[in-house]
């Protein structure tokens, strides 16, 4: 940085992403509170630890290989050539946005005075990875081993979500080019995949003891601490707002980027480098949150747990197109997503005996899938990328956004990269005898040993008079 304008742009961008990372940390705080609030007393501490430990596990593996996958896999490989080097192989050459710069031994993966952006960008994506893993965490509480969850968290957080991000959330991703996939704030690339992955794990893991009666009727195991759930979900909303900002590029001149001679157009862009504004996505975030809350209150008949979750489901459903929707479109789409998610949750629970302890599959998975499909219709015909009219990839093109492409995209997110790997990995862990805690432990409570160990001290303190 040798001139003041490039220094200001660079340092502003660095600081912008840094702020989003701090805000997004609240998502994880929220998930921890929410899960503990939803779990029973005898499982509280284990539930907290399980979700907390995904932070270091996903971070370490994100450093070792997760970040590299994002930059290497946009082409498939083998599905569509890169606009950078026109090859369909893994992007590991010397081009500007190659994975070669993000191997863990690269000198860009450390304090480097010539690169202010890679570190904060790495961190922003890492926070997305924690979220993907944390979504799965809530669904499987009170019966999964910490070992198994650690493996599954790494799989979704540092492997499968980052593959889908390379495919459908990268300006060079093959899903944009072939399917016209558009998912600006991650209805699919984080929420549908994590919901699908959770469902795959749940299908193998089985329900908590007592969840279903002998005749197969589901029983409600409600949140034990509604206040913790409330604060948790408010924090998730707050962090989600930071996530929206993190999905944008804050300042960019699209004129030269698209190869337009003599044109200067400074704007914020979404992750695909197509224009939007921070104002628009803020309006849409709030309107979809409101639509979700209003719909949730009605469909759940005022149940606070589902009403709060519906606020989240509403935002998730509208997120795919919230860079371009009108706020009222966003509002209505959120309401549709909540109706779909709530009803599908109870239908799947009864039909397949799936015990999703916090409704994660519904709120993230079903609402995310609904959001992708709806986006295909509402944004039908919009360009999936600005580069199709530019000079970067002469002679080829990106497909426009369309209903069929978005429907196939939803299947890829929820089914191919979500449900299937979750189910297969859970089967392997089950085969090793490592997936589920012993029945005796589930009945006694995962915290039994902690409580038992502290018993004598606690009693002595309670009966002390001096």
């Amino acid at each position, binding site marked *: 940085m040798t001139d003041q304008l490039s220094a200001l742009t660079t340092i502003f961008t660095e600081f912008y992403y840094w702020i989003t990372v701090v805000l997004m940390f609240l998502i994880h705080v929220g998930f921890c509170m929410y899960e503990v609030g939803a779990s029973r007393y005898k499982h509280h501490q284990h539930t907290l630890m399980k979700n907390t430990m995904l932070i270091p596990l996903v971070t370490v593996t994100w450093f070792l290989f997760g970040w590299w996958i994002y930059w290497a896999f946009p082409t498939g490989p083998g599905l569509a050539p890169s606009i950078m080097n026109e090859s369909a192989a893994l992007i590991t050459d010397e081009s500007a946005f190659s994975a070669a710069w993000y191997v*863990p031994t690269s000198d860009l993966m450390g304090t480097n005075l010539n690169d202010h952006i890679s570190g904060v960008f790495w961190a922003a994506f890492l926070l997305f990875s924690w979220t993907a893993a944390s979504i799965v965490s809530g669904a499987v509480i009170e019966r999964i081993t910490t070992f198994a969850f650690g493996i599954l968290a790494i799989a979704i957080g540092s492997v499968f979500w980052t593959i889908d991000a390379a495919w459908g959330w990268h300006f060079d991703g093959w899903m944009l080019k072939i399917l016209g996939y558009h998912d600006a704030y991650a209805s699919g690339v984080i929420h549908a995949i994590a919901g699908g992955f959770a469902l795959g794990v749940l299908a193998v893991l089985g329900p908590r003891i007592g969840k279903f009666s002998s005749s197969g009727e589901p029983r409600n195991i409600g949140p034990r601490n509604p206040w913790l759930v409330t604060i948790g979900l408010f924090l998730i909303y707050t962090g989600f707002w930071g996530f929206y900002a993190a999905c944008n590029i804050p300042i960019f001149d699209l004129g030269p980027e698209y190869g337009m001679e003599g044109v200067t157009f400074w704007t914020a862009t979404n992750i695909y480098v197509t224009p939007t504004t921070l104002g628009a996505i803020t309006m849409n975030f709030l309107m979809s949150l409101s639509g979700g809350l209003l719909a949730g209150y009605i469909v759940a008949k005022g149940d606070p747990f589902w009403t709060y979750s519906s606020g989240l489901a509403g935002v998730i459903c509208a997120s795919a197109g919230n860079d371009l929707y009108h706020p009222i479109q966003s509002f209505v789409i959120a309401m549709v997503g909540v109706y779909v998610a709530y009803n599908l949750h109870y239908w799947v629970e009864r039909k397949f005996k799936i015990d999703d302890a916090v409704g994660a599959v519904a709120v993230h998975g079903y609402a995310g899938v609904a959001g992708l499909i709806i986006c295909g219709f509402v944004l039908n015909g919009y360009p999936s990328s600005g580069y199709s009219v530019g000079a970067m990839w002469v002679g080829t093109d990106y497909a426009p956004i369309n209903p069929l492409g978005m429907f196939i995209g939803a299947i890829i997110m929820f089914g191919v990269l979500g449900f299937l790997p979750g189910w297969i990995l859970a089967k392997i862990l089950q085969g090793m005898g490592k997936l589920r805690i012993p029945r005796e432990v589930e009945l*006694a409570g995962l915290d039994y040993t902690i409580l038992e160990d502290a018993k004598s001290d606690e009693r002595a303190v309670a009966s002390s008079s001096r």
Partner: protein
Amino acid sequence: MATVSNWIDHLSAAEVQGAVYPGVGTEGILVLVLAVIWIGWHVMADMQETRKSKAIAKKRPGSNDWKSNVTDG
């Protein structure tokens, strides 16, 4: 080990070297250390968890026994 010993010399060079952390060139060893700690953690955590679970399973406490271990006073 120090990559920079004088900031004035470093920043006035014709081409500023970007990486300034100690031990530039030893990244391979650092990555190996991280990988060993990562895998080792899984092994140790699994051993601890299995041992704890087996102890509880052997004792077979009832579903409500935990309540007698909670003291709020």
